[in-house]
């Protein structure tokens, strides 16, 4: 009787393990949306002959899969390169000792502001935090011009912010705490609450609610704003805090980290060098309107240039540390 089981199980195993063991490969874990990241990985494969094995995740579920996976795999890493949509997660991994520094000719092309000082992560192609709004619900001249305008009574209950515990939003809030100091920032957050801010599950959710007319405006990332504009004529977006004395818009680069003791670290380095190129930045500018960080990269007209916007001055490492200290407060804030 047990023989039969064994046979059945063997058949199952045989059906499945028809996979080849390829040593000329690189394993990439990515939290950048698959629609945009996959074509880049395929191009790398074509140009170098190195097979890319990818694990995708999404910011929509806060990249739980990939992050928890990387942490759990720490003692015996499978992944060579972690490609994140923002540097915060790389910071978390760095603090847990999962990443390793990497420097090359290519990494030096990136301005110091957009990489870790020891190169535990290196930024490229950036997104910015913008305000998306629905033209049918609010006219362009009555829009808020700063995130601090959100607390004005005329906007009550008509705007949205993604859950501040996650993703780019959490980092955005941390920069504000960093700029204003805790007391001021907490007051601002509480005022947002009093003014009826709608806490959405994700930036994508903010986009959707503004797009279909549930709410007049909300904070989101440039890529979401561009998708929304592609899908609907009713939405547009603006950069906030661009005035002379204002704090500027938060710029969030993509970030690459080499994983410590990774199995194919040489290929991982090749991959990182490939990614830090004008070619890749140009492609990301076309596909999802990301702003290149390497000087001289050609971009389509509709993609904003970092030369034309006032970026917020951020120390990413300091902000990451800030983030950890304010998380309990933010958690309590969301649970109100």
């Amino acid at each position, binding site marked *: *009787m*047990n023989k*039969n*089981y064994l046979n*059945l*199980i063997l*058949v*199952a*195993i045989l*059906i*499945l*393990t028809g*996979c080849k063991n390829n040593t000329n490969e690189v*394993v*990439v*874990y990515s939290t950048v*949306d*698959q*629609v*945009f990241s996959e074509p880049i990985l395929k191009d790398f494969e074509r140009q170098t002959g190195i*097979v*890319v*094995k*990818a*694990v*995708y*995740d*999404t*910011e929509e*579920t*806060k*990249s*739980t*899969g990939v*992050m*928890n*996976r990387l*942490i*759990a*795999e720490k*003692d*015996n890493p*499978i*992944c060579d390169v972690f490609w994140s949509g923002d540097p915060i997660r790389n910071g*978390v991994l760095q603090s*847990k000792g999962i990443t390793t520094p990497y420097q090359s000719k290519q990494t030096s092309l990136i301005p110091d502001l957009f990489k870790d000082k020891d190169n535990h992560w290196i930024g490229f192609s950036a997104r910015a935090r913008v305000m998306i709004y629905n033209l049918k619900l609010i006219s362009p001249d009555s829009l808020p011009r700063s995130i601090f305008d959100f607390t004005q009574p005329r906007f009550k209950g008509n705007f949205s912010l993604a859950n501040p*515990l*996650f993703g780019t939003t959490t980092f955005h809030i941390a920069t504000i705490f960093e700029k204003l100091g805790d007391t001021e920032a907490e007051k601002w957050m509480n005022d947002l609450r009093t003014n009826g801010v709608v806490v959405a*599950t994700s930036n*994508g959710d903010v986009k*959707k609610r503004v797009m*279909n007319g*549930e709410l007049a405006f909300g904070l989101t990332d440039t*890529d979401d704003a561009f*998708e929304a504009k*592609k*899908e609907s004529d009713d939405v547009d977006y603006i950069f906030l805090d661009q005035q002379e004395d204002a704090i500027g818009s938060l710029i969030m680069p993509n970030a690459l980290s080499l994983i410590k003791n990774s199995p194919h670290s040489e290929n991982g380095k090749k991959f990182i060098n490939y990614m830090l190129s004008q070619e890749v930045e140009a492609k990301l500018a076309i596909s999802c309107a990301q702003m290149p960080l390497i000087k001289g990269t050609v971009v389509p007209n509709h993609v904003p240039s970092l030369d034309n916007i006032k970026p917020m001055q951020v120390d990413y490492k300091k902000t990451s540390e800030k983030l950890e200290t304010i*998380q309990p407060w933010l*958690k309590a804030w969301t*649970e109100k």
Partner: protein
Amino acid sequence: MDRKVSRNIAHIVPSLLLFVALALPFLLLILQWLTSSNKMTLFSFFNGPNLQLIGKSLLISIIAAMLSTFIGSICGFLLYKFKFPFSGFYKLMLLLPLLISPYIFAVAWKDGFFWLFGNAATVYSEAGVIMVHTFVFFPFAMLITGSALSQIHSGYEEAGLMIGSFRRMVISIIFPLIRPAITISFLLILIFSLSDFSVPAFFGVRTFTTEIFTQFSALYNFSLALGQSVLLLVICFLLLLAEARYLSDAPFFSVSVKGSISKKYDTGKRKILVHSILWALLIIVLLIPVFILIVQSLSGRAFFFSQALEFMFPAILQSIKLAFAGALLTTAVGLWTASEKERRGRKFPNFLLLLTFIVPSTVMGIALIRYYNLPALHFIYGTSLILLIAYLGKFGFITSRIIGNGIKQIPVSFEEAASVMGIPSNKIFLKISLPLMIPSLFTAFVLAFILCLGELGATMMVYPPGMELMPIKTFTISANAPEALTSSMTLVNLGVTVVLIMLFFIAGKWIFNKFQYA
């Protein structure tokens, strides 16, 4: 004597294998949790607000479980106790909500509310979570009570009809007879509802599961998240323990081998009423969400179906292959654990499957990674074998229960008659027991196949790099894609599953006709 030894080995070795492959990862994880954090922080989650949150989560899930059991039992009663045209159609269609992930349901319903009432605020609440869970999980109750109803011997009902009216008979004969089935579906749905985080997270309702998720994903506080998971595990375990203690003989998606024993009634004058109830349900739980998805998929600037198909194609084949292997494995192991329990009185393997069944997906993923991510075990962790282990952990208990019920219906004397004749036990199994178990094996296989095909939570954590799978792809692509593409992909996903179910249904008809013995 040798025989006895070899028989014991035949039992102990697979049990040990199952324990080492499946249960040990969790025990080690819990052990690690207990030893790594200091005693002060270990139980820091055990405080007033947390207990209050558990209470609230339990309340939400209890209401959802009661509602879905109520709706499901009514459907089961109508569909399995009455003869009327298209009842097979209803049975099939009302199962489909099980195939749509609760998250997609939540999104569709939110949009639906917004279109219908211009305001979606009402669904962003506990009520929204209860509604979606009720609609997604009621088919379980329908299946379980339905199979219990079709096993009631007609004699009981006829005897009841001699004494009182139909209604009295239903209340005082049928209802008490299927009460175990109702309790089981209630508990099962309660556990499913308790462990789902996607719907409450989307509706912004704080539950114990979203709390665990936040600890894992925002704060990366493993120790606390694990502690809370263990607490959830204990709650689910206590609930199932009640089941195991008092209701182990209750039916559970069993397939009747004696199809004709149950009595079916004519709908008579109430035909229209029955059809209206079923149609109303069909519209609410299936057609509205699907309609919303279709409208969304067509409302984009471009027509996305071909693109969706293109994205999905490689993933579809891989997913089907894997779900097939997963179903094969869970059915085979389920067959073994069920025979151990029902025929040899050894409950341990079945108990192992019950334990892993209630482990939250993220915890399962982490436990499996920590355990299997060793260079020597790379042939497991780096390949689809790890997914098969995850599937077994998640669904082995369900197949084991279905097959166990199938075995219970085969009189022991069938096997004894052959054994007295000198037929060797492997021959008895192959020639007597196995053919009689085919309908329940088939049902277990199909259900496991569908569940494996749609599994996301644990798959997300452990799938080998480079592999493309249908639920993962729908999920990761849909993140920033236009809504029309997302909806198209969901529909492709749903379409593929429905086509496969249809094929199974046709195969099932043939199998049941051939192997169902009146």
